């Protein structure tokens, strides 16, 4: 990023001040910046997803990019069919394209129900993948890491904290007696975790704020070294 009182830096600075001005009260400059942020971020993610997913994974794989442009890339399914006379597996990506296109039927009132099909595919894929990955990498891996030799205070604290924390999340039995005591200890561990996360969140937000002030006073106004 260039430094100094340039047009682009001034725009960035005005937008920064506009958002910060919300601390004073809701005002037209903040609303303008907020509206701009909504539009620009939607556009940014749209373009990013197009170039990261749709273009390479669908259009390039099927060969549509090569069909309509002179792009120098690997031949797609259409080129393989034309040149080699065989149906490539890449044609299966057409199913994803069709399912994706069906998603747009939500915009047509009478056909909106068809958009449930791609949604069902997404839900099924997420469920199927998460079922195994969460079981393997989170539940089992975390349990395995918690089975520790009780030869140090640290290990004892980790085992007690994890078990008691899990007892707190076990709602099928009333938290009374031993269960109640363990759940109470679990709450303390969870509170430490929330406190640590809170501390980290504050730190990260503060560093962002410092970054913005640094931009205004150093990069834009050039007041500091």
């Amino acid at each position: 990023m260039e430094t100094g009182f340039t047009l682009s830096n001034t725009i960035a600075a005005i937008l920064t001040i506009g958002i910060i001005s919300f601390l004073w009260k809701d005002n037209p400059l903040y609303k303008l910046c907020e509206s701009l942020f909504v539009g620009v971020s939607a556009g940014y993610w749209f373009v990013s997803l197009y170039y990261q997913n749709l273009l390479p994974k669908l259009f390039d794989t099927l060969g549509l990019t090569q069909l309509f442009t002179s792009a120098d890339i690997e031949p797609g399914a259409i080129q393989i069919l034309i040149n080699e006379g065989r149906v490539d597996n890449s044609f299966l990506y057409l199913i994803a394209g069709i399912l994706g296109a069906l998603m747009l039927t939500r915009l047509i009132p009478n056909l909106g129900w068809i958009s449930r099909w791609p949604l069902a595919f997404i839900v099924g894929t997420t469920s199927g993948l998460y079922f195994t990955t969460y079981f393997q990498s989170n539940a089992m891996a975390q349990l395995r890491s918690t089975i520790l030799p009780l030869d140090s205070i640290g290990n004892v604290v980790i085992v007690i904290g994890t078990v008691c924390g899990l007892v707190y999340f076990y709602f099928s039995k009333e938290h009374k007696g031993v269960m109640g005591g363990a759940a109470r200890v679990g709450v303390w561990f969870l509170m430490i975790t929330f406190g640590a996360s809170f501390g980290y969140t504050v730190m990260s937000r503060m560093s962002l704020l410092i970054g913005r002030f640094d931009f205004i006073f150093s990069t834009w106004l050039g007041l500091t070294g």
Partner: protein
Amino acid sequence: MRRQVPLAITFIVGWTLIIAVFIPHPPFGQLGENFTTYFDIIAVFAFILGGGNLIRVHGNKVYKKRQDWPYSIVTILGFVVVLIAGLFKIGNPDGLSGDLTQPGSLFQDLYTYIFAPLQATMFSLLAFFVASASYRAFRAKNKEATVLLVAAFIILLGRTPIGGYLTFWLPESLSFFHIPNLAYWIMTIPNLAGQRAILIGISLGVIAMSLRLILGIERSYLGGEGERS
């Protein structure tokens, strides 16, 4: 038809991916990766839907001149300008074949001078709200709130130079209580235990919810809040 087909798709896709884990041979071995790619492609269309909806909602607001409608023009303009600049790679030194984020392209400039400052400032604003929330939360009303307060305070101090300055005078035998050391211990021992309990709890929840979705017990994603018709 309207409910049975999506339920069948979820059931077949979900079970196929679960079974595929146990059969590491073609075509099952590649299924997870392929389905994730399909997922990515469909997600882009969902984003197209979202973009269309954004234009529709704000377009309606402008057309009917509802309250604060001029701001909707800004939203639409921002969306359209970034879209055109990005899709057509305007100002890109290498044209359409060049990298999207190449220096000098309009899309990259819009990112650097508009999107990044807005996003960073919007998130940094949360620092003030967090400070305000912490003022309320940090009033130690009970033992649990006190534990949260103490942990957060130690972490905050331990990650800044002031934490080190406050306790630098402690003798070697009490180095455990040196604030940066204490912060490190909290992060690696009790915080780890709490995180593990939460992670295991979340995993069990995700597994149960995945099963409910695959078996068609949970149907709220179809609309109608879990109707069984």
